[in-house]
């Protein structure tokens, strides 16, 4: 994974995992299989946390491993940090 900063596990994913801590404004090289794309980090993102690869509307699926890992709570812009402040699990809901 040398020379890349983040990994997108499946082409369907709208988030990638950063392989090093990334600072706001930095260019992030994202690998997906053999393909490498670039985008700018809109925020600081800690090691192993997720970066949004595309705009995600509110209450839309957040996708990693080609699978839904939860739903966005608010609109998320490309390059933003995706975590519990702007997404949540869609399972084991106590209230609908």
């Amino acid at each position: 994974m040398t020379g890349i900063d983040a990994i997108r596990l499946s082409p369907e994913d709208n988030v990638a995992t950063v392989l090093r801590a990334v600072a706001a404004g930095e260019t992030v090289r994202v690998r997906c299989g053999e393909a490498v794309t670039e985008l700018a980090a809109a925020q600081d993102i800690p090691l192993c946390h997720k970066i949004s690869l595309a705009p995600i509307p509110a209450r839309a699926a957040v996708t990693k491993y080609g699978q839904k890992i939860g739903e966005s709570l608010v609109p998320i812009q490309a390059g933003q940090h995706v975590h519990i402040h702007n997404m949540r699990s869609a399972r084991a809901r106590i209230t609908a």
Partner: protein
Amino acid sequence: MTPDVGTVAGGGEFLGYRRADGQVGVRNHLLVLSTGGLTGQTARRIAATLAGAVVVALPHSAGLIGRDEKVHRAAIVSLATHPNVGAALLVGDNPVIMAQAAAAIERSGRPFVGITLDECGHDALTLTDRGIRAGARLAREISAQRRTPAPAADLGLGLECGRSDPSSGLVANPLLGLMADWIVDAGGWAVIGETLEWLGAEDLLACRARSGDAAEAIRQAVLKREQVAVAAGVDLTGSNPSPTNIASGLSSIEEKSLGNIAKSGHRPIEGLLEYGEKPATPGLWTMDASAYAPKSLTGFVLGGAQVLLFTTGVGNSYVSALSPTIKLSANPKTVAALHQQLDFDASPAFLGHRSLEHTGEDLRRCILAVASGEATWGEILKEGDEVLSRFGPAL
């Protein structure tokens, strides 16, 4: 003698202890087992005196009912006849439980002695004295046993992850998936547990089930855990993923689960085992069990797994008492920080310096070396314990 570590195609071999019942151990422990809470300190006192003794103290006994009673009684026998146990010294307070266990252990051909407080005038010091003398004789007897070559097919691997971070799901757990594929192809078996951490990934597991019944059992086991969480009013975010998981970058149980099940590799799933149940055939198995590592690992040990592979993101020092637990991480920061905890460094695969396949070959050699006697950090530092799950109310 240097064992053949094999290739991905060939299974390889290790040097193990062949038991009278046909199982092969990777250790030759003298197990000092307290069957209940009244004799725990006596067991610890006895084990502290005897070289090479491993102590397991079950905290509960009288008053257990239903499933808990069944699991407790079965656990005594499964621990005493575990392949890694050369001989067992049992101490306890209930002569009926001791007699039942003795009959079952005797059938395995494993050397053992059982002593209850009733036979010692209800005096813990008398039990200590008799236990030390009996344990010493057992230790001497098993010291005559020697390791002989055994194929990897004789191994069962328990696959665990704890204090995970996203590096677990990216590298360390997929690496365990390669080990699961290897041991299954070699004719051995592997098991994953932690049912709650299949939530959001259960369809991917169910699709690989050997039968429709097994697929349905996996889905139902997950649904049941989800219903328990909802009925208890527990918000999984903050409990699972835990605060530590969240700080390291995991945002939901689904994300954690998808990383977790990467440990299972790619082979068909034979079925769903109950907690502590032994697999009936080789292959890849699932066990319906707690996601809490101490209870999960003991479930694998009761199932007969001789080696445990345990990935961690940020670090987790817990290991089994009976089965050497190979601890590994792919997170470079964690690997740099935890020298006397991590037995295997998977960070070169995370950093892109070594392929996952080559790292898998390294890990396979490590497994066979540990199975042949090389000590893990957890063994050297005596971190090992066994914790039995509880399921319902007691009297």
